């Protein structure tokens, strides 16, 4: 069942075309990867899908589908603790604050939730952002470069929790440059190049994907 479908998306910033007749669709209960060169338009595509940017084309999704977006650069209010940040995000989304669930997920990341979030390291900020998104239980989670700056244990646990979310029937879209990491968790990987999705990889090995990307570029 399709959870989100983008058709014929055009997006320009002044004279620069970023997305040009791009079409892509996502199904329920799947993990999708999105790869592309720097500046290819991955974040722009996400912003269009979320309605954060104006664009030409159509993005179809059911009204009751909730979407959560993890920004590539996390934002935290200063002088707010990690726990308060999570609670803030949950309240804003109208979710119930489940302390036991917060505790359970934090067992994976071991974050000092009573310390100010703005003082966290880059990796810790990513983990906190991921945690707050995961706790929102959105139907579709979009993660923009979630593994950047995260330590090995953190990445392993993130992958585990992403799989858990998929098993609960949620859809996850991840943009990353780490093909090996994506290959391990994603059911499908899209390659964004020349302003559109050039290829969707489903069963290929990492080597085949890399070779294919090199051939396209």
């Amino acid at each position: 069942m399709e959870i989100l479908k983008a058709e014929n998306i055009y997006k320009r910033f002044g004279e620069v075309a970023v997305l040009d007749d791009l079409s892509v669709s996502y199904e329920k209960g799947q993990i999708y990867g999105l790869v592309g060169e720097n500046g290819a338009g991955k974040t722009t595509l996400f912003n269009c899908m979320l309605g954060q940017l104006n664009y030409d084309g159509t993005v179809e999704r059911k009204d009751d589908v909730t979407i959560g977006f993890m920004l590539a650069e996390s934002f935290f209010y200063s002088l707010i603790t990690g726990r308060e940040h999570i609670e803030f995000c949950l309240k804003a989304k109208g979710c119930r604050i489940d302390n036991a669930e917060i505790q359970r997920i934090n067992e994976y990341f071991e974050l000092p939730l009573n310390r100010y979030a703005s003082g966290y390291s880059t990796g810790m900020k990513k983990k906190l952002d991921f945690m707050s998104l995961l706790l929102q239980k959105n139907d579709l989670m979009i993660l923009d470069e979630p593994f950047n700056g995260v330590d090995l244990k953190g990445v392993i646990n993130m992958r585990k929790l992403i799989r858990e979310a998929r098993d609960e029937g949620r859809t996850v879209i991840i943009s990353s440059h780490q093909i090996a990491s994506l290959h391990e968790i994603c059911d499908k990987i899209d390659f964004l190049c020349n302003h559109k999705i050039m290829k969707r990889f489903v069963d290929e090995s990492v080597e085949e994907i890399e070779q294919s990307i090199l051939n396209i570029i």
Partner: protein
Amino acid sequence: MSHFVPYYLSLRLKMLYRLFRQIGILRSCILMGIAYVVLYFLYKIDNQYVVVGVFSALALSVNQCRRDRQFLQLLISRPSLLLMIEYLLLSVPFVVVSSLKGEWVQVGVMLLVVVLVPFFKKIQTEHHFTVPLPFMYRGGIDMLYSMRLVGWILPILIAGGVMGCCYDNVKIVRVCTALYMIILSISMCNPQPLVRHFSSFRQFLVMNFKMVGYNLPLLVLPMVVLLVYSENAVSMPLCLLLGGFLFALATLFVRYVISNSLFMFIHIALFVALYVTTVMSVWGGILFAIVIAIYLFGIKIKYNYIWKY
């Protein structure tokens, strides 16, 4: 949404309380004292629209500086409502001042500002087009940053100065020159000071003095010509230039010593007041020199761990 507003405001209040606790009772009292003095002056000023102007400038700058816009948009459906409430709270002291003066029209204008400001988009200060600046001192990135940020305002001020000359109004030329120096200096406050790029404290000093010493006279030249032409004397242009040089150095060095944006803002506001009020007095120069010396001493101590090797 209705259940979220009180939670959001209580969180913001908590942040404010923590900020005051972090900076200490004494400094909090000083800040509140400054705020009280500013409000008292606003109450005493006869011009009816000064309070509205100050509040509008404050609300617009807060709106321009806020980084939580996208974050809030991702979480709630109508973030502008939240911002409106926040700006309404910000307007309370100004509304009280205007109410005490019986200026009800101005109160209405301020409420209108509260409603409209959240819908203003952030002005993009970075553009895809790179402005070429081949005449600037090479290596001095702070002034390149400054010119690309506010360079478009300078021709407007020069045009203002030319108008002043044409109509024999020296005051306009002076105001335009002072604004020119203030904007140029304040915009140099690049939020990311690069200390590790300098191999030693001496190199840090040489490069920054060279940068300001070379670029500032070059950029201020049109205004100096206009001033000399309108004043028929060199003393005023010289004072403005020398004062501006010291003012620019003080704003350039302050961000290396102070990382808290609120304190940096207070320091720079005091520099502006000092520059405007003492530009023709030797005391202004002496005070600026003392401030710069203190900053340099602070920088040397603060970054000694980088430069000692």
